[in-house]
């Protein structure tokens, strides 16, 4: 085996889909920044609100990546990943409100950015650790796990709706002024947040790819396909599941933290079971266990949502519902699977 093939085999970028995705992400990001920098009267100029919208899509793509990591590679369908996203968002929201006037005395500590950044990762991570430890230890799997994750996010939604939580009740946290000393309202901040989201997506994509290609990733896929067999071989399946589940929750938390300053609000509706299950359909549409499929699905579905809710709001739920049915029945591997299938057919005929 030559050094070149070894490098190729062990490099992250040896898969065609991976480097295509990376290139598309980087080029797309640069294009957006350049187009935004064009003079405002230029035909191709992208204004700030579009950049902000694209930034929001990027955070959704990050969330979809987190869901694909556990659903695609570990076979765990979480219907409550919105909870981790929202927790990260609330941590960021607390940091932003604590700049001006914290809602409760204990929240003053969140005014320090390092504390807040830690909270963004630790709050969802800890919840996932405790919840996952309890669930995986007692071997709650399949639909049971899905149902209790849904119950978890539902319970959190009810809890965050209470004013006693000092989290803004049903209004949530809003009216943010500045981030790290810069005004949130400025165009520069919009671009900075967009780029930060893009970089986060890229890093998370590479990170997830690295995990899935590592020994851990192989055990994950083995667990997905035959959990009992992996356990009999001697692996502590619950530890594997827990580690990846916590990692996935942390990614979701970061996505939430990037989402909040771009949207300007975080409220309990993010905990709604509907949102979490929507994330699953992004991944399902794009294609499970491919990572780039999750990114693609999140982008496409959310773009459709933006367009349709503007043009004909009534049609959106019909379309979303239809997507659930069509994708599960006719596209079990999602768009990614469809593309692979077409490519194989072309290779065969060629």
């Amino acid at each position: 085996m030559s050094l070149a093939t070894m490098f190729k085999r062990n490099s992250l970028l040896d898969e065609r889909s991976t480097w295509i995705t990376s290139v598309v992400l980087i080029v797309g990001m640069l294009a957006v920044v350049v187009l935004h920098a064009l003079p405002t009267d230029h035909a191709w100029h992208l204004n700030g609100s579009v950049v902000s919208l694209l930034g929001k899509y990027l955070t959704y793509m990050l969330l979809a990546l987190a869901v694909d990591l556990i659903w695609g590679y570990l076979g765990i369908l979480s219907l409550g990943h919105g909870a981790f996203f929202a927790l990260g968002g609330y941590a960021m929201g607390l940091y932003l409100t604590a700049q001006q006037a914290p809602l409760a005395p204990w929240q003053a500590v969140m005014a320090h950015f390092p504390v807040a950044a830690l909270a963004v990762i630790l709050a969802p991570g800890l919840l996932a650790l405790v919840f996952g430890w309890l669930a995986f230890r007692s071997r709650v799997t399949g639909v049971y796990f899905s149902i209790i994750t849904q119950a978890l996010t539902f319970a959190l939604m009810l809890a965050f709706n209470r004013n006693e939580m000092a989290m803004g009740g049903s209004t949530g946290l809003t009216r943010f002024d500045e981030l790290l000393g810069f005004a949130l309202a400025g165009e520069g901040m919009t671009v900075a947040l967009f780029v930060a989201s893009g970089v986060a997506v890229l890093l998370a994509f590479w990170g997830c790819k690295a995990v899935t290609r590592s020994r851990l990733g192989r055990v994950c896929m083995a667990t997905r396909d035959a959990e009992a067999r992996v356990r009999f071989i001697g692996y502590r399946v619950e530890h594997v599941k827990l580690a990846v589940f916590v990692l996935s929750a942390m990614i979701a938390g970061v996505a939430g933290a990037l989402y909040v300053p771009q949207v300007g609000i975080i409220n309990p509706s993010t905990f709604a079971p509907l949102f979490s299950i929507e994330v699953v359909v992004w991944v399902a549409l794009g294609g499970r266990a491919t990572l780039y499929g999750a990114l693609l699905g999140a982008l496409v579905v959310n773009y459709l949502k933006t367009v349709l809710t503007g043009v004909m709001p009534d049609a959106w739920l019909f379309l979303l519902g239809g997507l659930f049915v069509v994708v599960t029945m006719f596209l079990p591997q999602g768009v990614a699977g469809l593309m692979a299938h077409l490519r194989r057919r072309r290779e065969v005929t060629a």
Partner: protein
Amino acid sequence: MTPTHATNVRPEGMTGPQAGLGFRHCLTVVAALLVWLAIVSPVQAEVTPQRAQALLQALDTDDFDAKAEAAQAIAASDAAQKTRWLEALLDGRLGRERRGERFYIITDDSGREWPIIDAITFEEAGTGSRRSVDAFRINNALRTQLQGLIASLSLDEGDEATRLEAAKRLIGEVDAQSVDTVAAQLDDEESPAVRAELETALALYRVEQGDAAALETLRGNLDTRVRNSLATIAAGDAPIAAEAGETLAGIESKRAWYERGQTLFFGLSAGSVLVLAAIGLAITFGVMGVINMAHGELIMMGAYTTWMIQQLLPGQPGLALLLAIPGGFLVAAAFGILIERSVIRFLKGRPLETLLATFGISLILQQLVRTVFSPLNRRVASPDWLQGAWQINEALSLTLNRLGVLLFCLVVFAALWALMRYTRLGLEVRAVTQNRAMARSMGVRAARVDMLTFGLGAGVAGLAGVALSQITNVGPNLGQSYIVDSFLVVVFGGVGNLWGTLVAGMSLGVINQVLQPWVGAVLAKVIVLIGVILFIQKRPQGLFAPKGRTS
């Protein structure tokens, strides 16, 4: 005798002079009935106009004590109009002409010009106003006294319900002047219910006067006024304070028991809603292993069917509701079978995919309802026999609609259980559940059984919708609010076990109600959710685990 009788009958009968009608003593209840008959006939118990004038004249004073005495005198007199007078006085509608000696009752004081009638003859007397008629003023003490007097007057008259109402009003209103009258009324009273109230009223008065023996009568009485006065006495330094405290403690503990009963009832009724919502799932999820996220929307279909049938039968909510029971079942079952045939059967053995596809269907159904009907909530009317409450005693009353849902839930459960246990379909369903391949080789058409089972589960969801329409508004989001709870109930109870669903639903409902007074409704729900999540970690197979290899 009610004032209406007087006004209705008098104009013809009383146009002539009333002077010659003479006196008649009619204090007893039997006599009061005669009086009521007498109103219809021209013969009338009456006092002379002069006497009536004098009685009213006594009210015309600024001294409230004198007014109180005058009111007392009116109540004690034989004047047939006395109830009407006292009621008018209580309402501030009895008055004297400013320039003259006639007394009027203002029949309607809403406008500037009031229609008035003569207070003695009840003949219409044109209109009066603030300038021409001086209404007698009363103060709070007098108001209380008047209420007592009117109550004891209505005890003489009217049917049992009126007397019971009057006797209830007397509790806490008995004073030194009226005590003898009340005692006399007690002797004449025949209805045990009215007697009990009068005895309470008298005993409460005697206890307030320091009579320890009367406390015995009040033992275990649940009336709020009794409890309040006993609390005042027990807190004071009267000689019977200790005994009163003891009686009060007895009352409090009895009330506490009834309150626990009330909580239990609320819990069971909330639980029965959960059971109704979950029992259909227990069939589709538990028996067939199919995750149907559109179950909530099937419930919604049942509720909308009820609403539609009610729109088709305006003014007959009872009939509409009875028709909605088969209607809701059939509509939801038809939708269920459609879903099973078109989607679910293609996803057999892929529970996660089934979950997603049925969730998509639920979104479509929700939006369908929004588009076809409206995004707004619809109110479904309740028939008379489901309105109001069944007042068992002062501390315990059961809302009829919730009671109805509870009973309905039990009936549905019993019917389903019997269906599963005794019918051929039930047998086939259980056979397919236990061993599909074996059942098929024995000639059971598994695909048909799947379809019927799913239709049955969906139909039961429709029944749940019919029941829910009686306790909550019907809207596109109705189903969503129950889906998480329903799944938890099924999982908590143990999948594939109807009894488990019943026990789980009822106990979750009761636990929620018990927690509510301490932590509030939302937190109670959060605690229950987290409790169930932890329970499932501890015991993934639920309360009642299915036995054998199928688990």
